[in-house]
């Protein structure tokens, strides 16, 4: 079973290179070589996506970590009410919106990079 599975997996870098559907190119050596290459590409995509995620998370986490201490020192109910009851929701949606734009741009850049390497195949 694992033999069979390996065969399926090795098809994947051809996808990355946009060459699916050309069975003639499917020699083992080429596929193995491209597997390593494909994995390296994906690693770089993962890194940029993780960076975007962590950036958004930090923007969220820092105020959240500080606010309870701040409110504890302030002891002013209406202010806490205003900030937590109303003010924070637009802030959350704004972070989400920024993150989605950034993540989609990362993916577009990655797709351009992959397709740019083998322009003769074009997008699938």
């Amino acid at each position, binding site marked *: 079973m694992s033999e069979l599975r390996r065969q*399926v997996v090795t098809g994947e870098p051809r*996808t990355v290179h946009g060459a699916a*559907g050309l069975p003639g190119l499917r020699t083992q050596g080429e596929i193995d070589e491209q597997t390593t290459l494909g994995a390296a590409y994906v690693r770089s995509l*993962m890194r940029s996506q*993780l960076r975007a995620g962590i950036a958004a998370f930090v923007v969220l986490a820092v105020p959240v970590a500080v606010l309870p201490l701040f409110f504890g020192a302030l002891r002013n109910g209406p202010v806490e009410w205003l900030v937590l009851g109303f003010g924070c929701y637009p802030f*959350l*949606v704004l972070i*989400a919106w920024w993150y*989605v734009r950034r993540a989609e741009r990362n993916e577009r850049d990655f*797709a351009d990079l992959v397709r740019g390497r083998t322009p003769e195949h074009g997008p699938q």
Partner: protein
Amino acid sequence: MNEAYAIPAVAVVVLATVLIGGFGLRISRTTSDFYVASRTVGPRLNAAAISGEYLSAASFLGVAGLLLVHGPDMLWYPVGYTAGYLVLLVFVAAPLRRSGAYTLPDFAEGRLESREVRRVVSMFVVGAGWLYLVPQLQGAGLTLQILTGAPRWFGGALVAAVVILAVAAGGMRSITFVQAFQYWLKLTALLVPAFFLVLAWHGDGGSPPTFPSTDLPSAGVGAGQPLATSRADHPLYATYGLIVATFLGTMGLPHVVVRFYTSPNGRAARRTTVVVLALVGVFYLLPPLYGWLGRIYAPELTAAQDADATVLLLPGRMVDGVAGDLLGALVAGGAFAAFLSTASGLTMAVAGVVSQDVLPARGVRHFRLGVLLAMAVPLGGALLVDGVPVADAVGMAFAVSASSFCPLLVLGIWWRRLTPPGALAGLFLGGGSALLAVTLTVSGAATSGWLHTLLAWPAVWSVPVGFLAMILVSLATPDAIPTHTTATMTRLHLPETLWSGSLRPPGLQGRGELRDQPYTTRTHDEAQGPTARREHK
């Protein structure tokens, strides 16, 4: 509260749920429709459905009740419920959808290629789902009792029966419509009365309520008393405890996770999450308003066991005559929508796991059997154990989810060196200890001091324990890294536009129909020959 209006309102909500569910039955034809609505739900409908499912009794009734009793610190609950979706978005949403798995156990097995991890995750999913279902049924009992004087068990049994009918009949496709409808119903049910209540408050002079800087003396807040005293002991720690639990726990809630598989692709899953954040955020502007007004018009509810009833009782107290009765009926209908939608989502998720991992065969008939099993246990629990405050019980489910599923998802998606033994260690040490702490709290093992505070708000320590255990044990067992990790990671992170038939990491493949892949065509499958076919068993 005038039952002449409330009973028809509840009846209309129940009837609408059954009818829309029946409409789903007519268009729900295949197993795929049943489980994932054939993965064709667009962002707007799906976002309304996710929000409708998510806004439970804890949000509709519990938040206002907690604010009434404990003051503005409790605003962290709605903030956490919302921010949890942001954390879910930035770390989990798109890869989770791309994993192509349907439930958390599917994800665990696909990523880690281990049946043992799958079984343990299934156990936790069913446990967390039941933990979350019990308060929904109890809330329904409380609501019907206040509205009509019916015995407590009746409301829970009614919700259970309607949910079993709606879910077993139409599966995911039908509840997608039901949930979307119920989001708008819940929003309306709080928004319209809120408008009149604020007018009435303004007419009374519009003086702001007072908030004592410490908690009110917890004068017999029913079974919620231990938690109430613990907050008074160490309020700052308790606040951080609930922040960690809600921010990180949302991503692992079984009914939330299942919803992401109904998006057509990873990009849609992300966009859906942003819409959910907006919808949930808009809704959460309202319950605090009820808490604020309750502090002025119904302060004595803090002393009774019925702080959860603040939202239900306010319209009748502040607006006189028929108008007040009608507004009260609207709120009651909304509350029932809250029980029904969350309970059906949870039942759907738990039934999915039960029918896949417990029952011997799949298919629509076994799924229906799974629905019965998924609902029977929490119904029994709700009838036996009485009186844990709704929001507290839900908070515990969040803590368990944050300590077990959050490390599994985040590390599974972003860290290549995660191993099955590491995942098991994290699940048992993090999730297990949180579950134990919650059980000890409910059983009343420690009722005061730091020990009690630590047990009642476990997330602050149990989440790091879960992460550390997963990381350290994984590093200690490098030989156990799953064979296909690279391929799996590729699938989780590669945009679907770059997919083709050959890009199907075998670890995440399985029982054909459930993992239908809109982005791969038949021809690609055939191009791979008979070896690929056998992958689908």
